[in-house]
């Protein structure tokens, strides 16, 4: 009887499902952006436009779920995600059978091994930070042309097996494998940045043409079949067309007029009210694992003194920062370095002290006392910000704050093309800077360890991501402990403790967490927001 009922339900449900797919399949999704991605090479591109696009074009052994509300990496080209053995250092994958690249070639374990080597040969930005822990990776970093990853990546074609061995345990390694830079490409992919030449992928779409100043066209990968609807779902639209050339104001207007379905750029602040009020149904807002913060150089006076750094954390007005950066719809105040939505996040402001009734209210009196105690009162402090409307305004507000608590403060506004690298270089002797960090993958190490690991200080280099040059033996030991803890609950508690310790030492003053405001056309349906991929181009429909 139960069987009969189930069969009857299926009979009703099946045609409806099939009908739904038929109705919405087809059409061209029309996107707009000011300009192109840095490169079409998925192993090198480091740009959120490409992360979003490549989600439907390339796959790794793992991926982040292409569905709403889930964060943890899932199996993609691998049949399942392995539980690591050998004290968390060995991962054994079995490759799915029958998958083909968009050029018709079958995917084999050799392609997987070659792609992992290519991360080093082609010089992926995260080669050192994400994959430098694979056995043999250090030799690959030193001499990319001779990279073999011998002992680190071992394949067994007979069982489609791939074994990856790490030097140390890394609980976030599967997240790193899910990141775009570990995309699997044909073994024949060139051992250098492919630039504006698209490489074959395994996803639902393929890149047909590209010009960084005019546009990009994607159509269906003719060899694609859906193997897992969460890892790489089949797409609704037949083509995705991306046109470059408009600025963000013109993009908003064009979407209002129905000329485009989606825009890449951040929505200009002066238009937020308009789109929220008049086009409410077309606006989607979600939290981003992304922070704006003040980085204080712990090797430059006055911020080589703990009291001075703590004073900044006490004095900044995070509510004002929210207003300057787009208002409560687009920003949340932040007082920890683990944003909301990331494992270990605690809704607390430890830097403000437990006694304060309103933890977001600045305390200039205590801050002034701390500045005086640090012996740096009257010192000249230069804050370096990006030359942009929002950051200039916020910078001016911060300058007033710094002046009020006892320093002779000044804002220096630098073109966004160089600011991020300028503030990293110790040779520029930057004291304090306003900067931001977006998660690559939603894990706590991608914030705390990347930004505060002693090994990420490279004096005199434009690439020294520990901008505060903060090196604390206690924090360093806690990183090692967290990475060696297999249990997820106790690991999360450890990351919270690291966050707290970092905030006590105050090498940074977090200000706001970004929320993403997406604005789509009236005809666009089935909006799905999936974590770092944002809106899924393969899942929306336009008819």
């Amino acid at each position, binding site marked *: 009887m139960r069987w009969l009922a189930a069969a009857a339900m299926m009979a009703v449900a099946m045609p409806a499902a099939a009908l739904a797919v038929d109705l919405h399949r087809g059409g061209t999704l029309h996107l707009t952006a000011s300009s192109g991605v840095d490169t079409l090479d998925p192993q090198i591109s480091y740009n959120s436009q490409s992360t979003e696009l490549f989600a439907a074009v390339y796959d790794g052994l793992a991926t982040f779920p292409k569905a709403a509300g889930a964060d943890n990496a899932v199996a993609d080209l691998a049949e399942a995600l392995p539980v690591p053995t050998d004290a968390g250092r060995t991962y054994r994958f079995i490759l799915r059978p029958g998958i083909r690249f968009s050029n018709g070639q079958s995917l084999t374990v050799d392609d997987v091994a070659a792609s992992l080597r290519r991360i080093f040969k082609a010089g992926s930005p995260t080669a050192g930070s994400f994959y430098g822990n694979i056995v043999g990776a250090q030799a690959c970093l030193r001499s990319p042309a001779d990279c073999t990853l011998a002992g680190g990546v071992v394949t067994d074609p007979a069982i489609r097996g791939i074994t990856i061995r790490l030097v140390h345990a890394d609980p976030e390694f599967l997240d790193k494998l899910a990141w775009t830079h570990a995309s699997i490409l044909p073994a024949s992919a060139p051992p250098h940045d492919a630039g504006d030449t698209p490489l074959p992928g395994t996803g639902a779409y393929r890149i047909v043409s590209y010009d960084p100043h005019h546009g990009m066209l994607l159509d269906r990968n003719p060899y694609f079949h859906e193997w897992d609807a969460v890892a790489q779902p089949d797409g609704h639209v037949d083509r995705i067309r991306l046109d470059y050339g408009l600025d963000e104001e013109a993009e908003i207007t*064009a979407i209002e007029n129905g000329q485009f379905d989606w825009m890449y750029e951040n929505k200009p602040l002066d238009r937020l009210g308009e789109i929220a009020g008049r086009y409410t149904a077309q606006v989607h807002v979600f939290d981003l694992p992304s922070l704006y913060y003040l980085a204080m150089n712990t090797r430059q006076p006055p911020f080589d003194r703990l009291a001075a750094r703590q004073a900044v954390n006490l004095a900044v007005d995070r509510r004002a920062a929210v207003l300057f950066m787009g208002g409560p719809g687009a920003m949340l105040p932040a007082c920890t370095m683990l944003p909301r939505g990331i494992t270990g996040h605690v809704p607390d402001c430890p830097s403000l002290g437990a006694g304060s009734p309103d933890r977001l209210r600045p305390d200039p009196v205590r801050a002034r006392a701390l500045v005086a105690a640090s012996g740096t009162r009257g010192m000249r402090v230069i804050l370096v910000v990006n030359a942009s409307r929002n950051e200039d305004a916020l910078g001016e507000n911060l300058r007033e704050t710094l002046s009020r608590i006892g320093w002779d403060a000044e804002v220096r506004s630098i073109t*966004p093309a160089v600011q991020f690298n300028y503030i990293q270089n110790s040779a520029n002797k930057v004291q304090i800077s306003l900067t931001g960090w977006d998660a690559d993958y939603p894990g706590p190490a991608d914030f705390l360890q990347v930004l505060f690991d002693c090994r990420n200080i490279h004096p005199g*280099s*434009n*690439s020294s991501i520990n901008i505060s040059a903060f090196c604390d033996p206690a924090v360093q030991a806690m990183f090692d402990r967290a990475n060696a803890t297999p249990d997820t609950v106790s690991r999360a508690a450890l990351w919270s403790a690291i966050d707290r310790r970092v905030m006590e030492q105050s090498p940074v003053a977090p200000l706001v967490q970004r929320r993403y405001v997406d604005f789509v056309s009236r005809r666009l349906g089935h909006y799905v927001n999936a974590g770092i991929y944002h809106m899924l181009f393969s899942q929306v429909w336009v008819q």
Partner: protein
Amino acid sequence: MAMALLRRLGQTVLVLFGISVLVFLVFFATPGADPTARIAGRNASPETMALIRHQYGFDRPLPVQYERMMVSLFVTRDLTSFVDHGERVVPEVFRAAPVTLSLVFGAAIVWVLASIGMGTLATALRGSLVDRGLMILGLIGISMPVFWLGEVINLVTQSRMHDSWMFSWVPGLGYVPLTQDPVGWFKVLVIPWITLAILFIGIYGRVLRADLVAAYSEDFMRTAQAKGLSASRVLFRHGLRTSMITFVSLFGLDFAQLVGGGALLTEVVFGLQGVGRLTYQALSNLDLPLIMATVMYSAVFVVLANALVDILYVLLDPRVRDAG
């Protein structure tokens, strides 16, 4: 003649060399401009930085880097961007050129016709209310910054009144190639043409009027009038032709700098992917190869236009012709 051409060519090479050295040195003297970290991507390890530095040749001495850049810009023409990896900048500039040419040619026709009309009408009716009105209109045209005017026009035609009968024909911003759709090309460009032309109509109309009025006190004009020629013949055949000399030399320079990328603001505001917009993007991204390519392209046009203006002088002014 051959000597004159050779001299021109020599001057051109010298100008290009000077500008390119200047652009190159200013770029490398800018703090934080070192492109290695930007190419390598954020949080790149020292080893990856070294790999990129070597691949792009940033580890070589500056003169060697300059020479390599010039060779790949002018000889092999395979210079690639620092921002859009693998993008060859020379073909990119040539792909952008038709957009700029379409914009500037159309605008030039509008402004030449309108300013000649305005200048001659104001001269013919000099002292009258029409004359004053036209001159004030010209001044207003000159005073409106082109990016502001463009944005306001966009606000009206694309947003606030887009659905009204007046502007519902206005297509979205961007460019449509002439070869693909001539009507679409015209529709997309007609508003940018007018926007870009307004400033020049004001300047040229006023300049022409001043020259024409001055011409009326010249002997040859009095002779023409004394011979009993009609007022319109005196104005157009004798007055306008000689008064066009300033007009033409101004036009040569303005036209050349616009074709070379000077219509940057108009192109940016209207989303036209021409040479100006390319220059704007290159500058805002500090993309040295693209900056170099667009600057060289622009310089070539300015030098060429100067040569053309010299030739036009000869045709227009009998004194120059006879002196030669």
